[in-house]
């Protein structure tokens, strides 16, 4: 099996995913295009050498539909021989796009590829693609479908995380993200989104609230209590009947933010990199995905991490830094508990609670964040993982060269 090297990784800033968000005026196609152009330009790529462009996108309808990856390849001015493919594994799509590219390279069938993702959530709202899972009674009812917020609250209930526990984690995410930005840790990888006139529209993540405190979060009402009372709490309890009542602790302040953004990661074989004069930054040690119980939905990161660690012949102790997507605070707290990790190694520069979670792009963004931080700290290994809708998890282990 060949090695898969990571040559570069970058992302757009994350714009607030509402009408007043800076990126709301920018099409999803344009976001993806600028990410592809940036990775081409700063690596001096002859795009004709790229075997594939794989982009994650979770709601591939409307402007994000009809294989946005191919459209972005064409709009970015890549050579016409470069194909594009859009994939969807919900929240891990961006990481799975990189894994899929890496798999082709490791198998010797791909030499150079771009993985990444895009999601303009202010323009194509979450849930726009509909789907059988929540709606078709033949699966929704037997699979105990509940919205993710209920699952996150169920985790908090079962694991005994209090409102204070999850709020404290959220404050930490904000503090770490603010510190990372102020000390310039994202400068290398965040490319400004520009308009056609060359003006910068957005250069920094704009979802962050660095002033967040326990008091300010304490004022927020639980976001999923009402939804739970419609029947979803009962569904969750029927799946976990040891629970008497769901403790609703999550709200907008301790859940991932809705944002717009795109990311791109350049991966390739050792030989292709040498041929093109690219400098490898890390290699992909192992990756994989897993299915888990779909009602609680968000517990697979630990399961898939163990699976992928075992494949790499490693243990938790061999990993220097962890990035687990901050879908909800309880997801991270449970991961810390199950994996027995020190919080000092996990999400050290904050995460999606502070900076937002552009669904299809986040996985690729986390990969880049982990790589940058390994370099900054002079460390070697990182594990990136995300929880996924319908009970799945994806993880990737990278090793700096």
């Amino acid at each position, binding site marked *: 099996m060949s090695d898969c090297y990571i040559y570069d990784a970058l992302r757009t800033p994350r714009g607030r995913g509402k009408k007043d968000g800076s990126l709301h005026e920018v099409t999803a196609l344009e976001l993806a295009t600028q990410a592809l152009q940036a990775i081409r330009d700063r690596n001096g790529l002859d795009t004709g050498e790229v075997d594939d462009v794989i982009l994650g996108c979770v709601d591939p309808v409307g402007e994000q539909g009809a294989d946005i990856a191919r459209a972005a390849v064409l709009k970015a001015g890549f050579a016409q021989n470069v194909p594009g493919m859009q994939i969807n594994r919900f929240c891990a799509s961006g990481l799975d796009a990189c894994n899929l590219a890496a798999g082709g390279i490791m198998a010797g069938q791909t030499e150079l590829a771009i993985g990444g993702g895009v999601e303009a959530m202010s323009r194509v709202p979450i849930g726009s693609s509909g789907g059988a899972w929540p*709606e078709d009674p033949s699966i929704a*009812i037997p699979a105990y479908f509940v919205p993710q917020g209920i699952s996150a609250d169920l985790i908090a209930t079962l694991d005994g995380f209090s409102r204070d526990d999850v709020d404290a984690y959220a404050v930490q995410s904000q503090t770490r993200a603010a510190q990372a930005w102020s000390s310039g840790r994202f400068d290398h990888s965040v490319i400004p989104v520009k308009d056609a006139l060359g003006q910068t529209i957005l250069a920094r993540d704009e979802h962050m609230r660095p002033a967040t405190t326990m008091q300010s979060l304490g004022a927020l009402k639980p976001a999923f209590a009402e939804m739970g009372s*419609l029947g979803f709490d009962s569904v969750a309890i029927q799946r976990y009947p040891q*629970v*008497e009542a769901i403790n609703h602790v999550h709200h907008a302040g301790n859940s991932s933010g809705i944002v717009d953004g795109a990311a791109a990661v350049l991966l390739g074989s050792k030989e292709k990199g040498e041929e093109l004069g690219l400098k490898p930054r890390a290699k992909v040690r192992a990756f994989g995905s897993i299915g888990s119980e779909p009602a609680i939905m968000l517990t697979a990161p630990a399961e898939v991490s163990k699976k992928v660690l075992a494949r790499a012949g490693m243990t938790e102790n061999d990993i220097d830094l962890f990035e687990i997507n901050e879908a909800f605070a309880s997801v991270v707290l449970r991961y810390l508990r199950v994996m027995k990790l020190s919080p000092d190694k996990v999400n050290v520069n904050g995460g999606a609670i502070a900076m937002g979670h552009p669904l299809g792009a986040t996985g690729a963004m986390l990969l880049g964040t982990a790589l940058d931080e390994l370099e900054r700290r002079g460390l070697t290994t990182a594990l990136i993982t995300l929880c996924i809708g319908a009970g799945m998890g994806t993880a990737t282990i990278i090793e700096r060269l």
Partner: protein
Amino acid sequence: MELTQFKWEQDSGGIVTLTWDTPGKPVNVLSLAAVTELGRVAERLAEDGAIKGLVITSAKSGNFCAGADLDEMAGIAGGAGADTVKTAFDTMMGIHHVFRKIETCGKPVVAAINGTALGGGLELTLACHHRVMTTDASARIGFPEAQIGLIPGAGGTQRLPRMIGAMNALPLMLESRRIDPAAALGIGIVQQTVAAAELLAATKAWIAANPHPVAPWDRPDFRIPAGGPFSKSGAQVFTVGNAMLRSRTYDNYPAQRFIMSAVYEGLLVDIDTAFKIEARYFVRALLSSNSKAMIRTLFHSMQELGKGARRPKEVARTEVRRLGVLGAGVMGSGIAYVSALAGIDVTLIDTTGERAEGGKNAVTKLLDREISRGRATPARKDEVLGRIHPETRFEALRDVDLVIEAVFEDRKVKAEATEKTDACTPGTAIFGSNTSTLPITGLAQASRRPESFIGVHFFSPVDRMGLVEIIVGKQTGDRALATAIDYVAKIRKTPIVVNDSHGFYTSRCFETFTLEGLTMLHERITPPLIENAGRMAGMPMGPLEVMDSVGVDTGLKISRAYRAEILKSENPGPQEQIMAWLVEENGRNGVKNGKGFYDYDSRGKRQRLWPGLFSYGATSWRNDADPKELMRRLLTIQALEAARCYEENVITDPRDADVGAILGWGFAPFTGGPLSMIDTMGAAAFVAQCDSLAGKYGERFRPNRGLREMANSGETFYGRFAKRRAA
């Protein structure tokens, strides 16, 4: 036209009135014969140029159609194998074909709904182009199918949501709601309501004004009201609807999920394709053992028992005109209330005038509540109250037909009441005891006429519970039994007849459920898991909540009495210890004092489990027990007790066991009752399950001899019973 199910009348203007009149029945049923004739009518309509339109109405008073012919359906479902499936599917598609011919015949077809229209009857009206309904407030429309494990099968799951939107259509079908003409008009199922006398004129006027109607879904610009499953509102309807359905039913009722699926899948395609989807789900429901058991118990058996199936035929029909009720407490006043509602004069006796008046006041409150909900008028209240006469003197019983005692549950008190009554009542009066536990044969010893002494066991709250358990003592005579059954029919409740035994039938079986819950608590299974397992098994409440509503102190008293009198034991079992701990160490008697296993608010509404409960016992609670195993235990122990009652001759008719279990204590209705549950499972499988549970949890699960015989012979309770009846 020559028709047997309908009358055909063509007026001078070319409008045909088709009057439905199912021969030999008080209500119309949508039989296959009726469907065939409707097909001929549709053809004639399309072909005959002189005919301008059709009005469909009914000759039955207050009834348009009661629904499909369930016996005919049962016949279709009775076979086995692929042929049965094909026949059933073809039959349903045949109905769709006829209804579709009516809908697309090119001429206006209008339903003049002159009375209640249910199920298939309502579906026929949906295939008409316009619906005019009587304003008669007692008329109803609705889809009762899901109540007996079926789904609307004559187009209802498709036409209704296309007419009024999925959000309005689904609850009507899922919850079998029946709505009155005003509500039907409001929701858009009928387009007009008029006085019954004006129905024909209104329908004919519409026909004249609309010579070429097209069903909305046959127009090219048709859109589903409020949108299909993937519209914004549709996504809400189905996503939340699925959760609400599970939250309400624990997914124990396949038919309800089939309704959801038929609507969801049907709305994604054109209506003709949608009918195929509906037909497939209908046939799945029809052929399921689940619907067969539900139809048998909740339709046929209930009707048969209500009509006096268990009545001694030799005794002439009796009529209770005057009733004496002894004891004006909760039960006594409830009995007085339901009896007065049925037109019976009630003498309500208690030891003091104040108490007797108190009973009447309780009835006043019940009537006021009915008035506030629009279900009674002040005039009706006066009329009902006028029939209740509070009294302290037993002499007031001198001309009663029946006396029901609802005095304190104590042999001495009951004996005294019996003697005093005997001294004053005419020799023809029947004496009924509303005891819930004390054997009737023993109580009858206080009577001078034990042949006239019988158990008449009501359930609480009397006005809402539809069952009365009639207990036949050793000496109870046929006239007493006939009188009790006739009386129960008159107050519009369903009687079951059981033989005397400790706890009779209902209390005895029901008690196994609560005891099993307490045993689980003793096994350190975490209380929420016990409670959720009970609800998920299909019981209306978890066993601990049930204990609270019965009264933990009452349970403790019964347990101690049973131990002293029957078991002759000094040592309380773990279940009794838990009750004693709650009642005597923590003052928690249940709902009655707002404190039991749960906490209750001032109106008696259940709050969370009492946090202190978790401090009971020393070892940690187990939350890893398999919920399915707990559910199995909770249902099996009840069904096994019912099987024992059958073997011991407490139960002599499986219909009594199944109807009594569902109406009396809410035994998982989707099973069709405990004996149906065993029949559906097969006695061999049930016996194996019992033996396995006995191995793990104790001898109380060991199956009785009769069950083992059935397991060996492959017999069923209903099969055995049919044989016995034929013999």
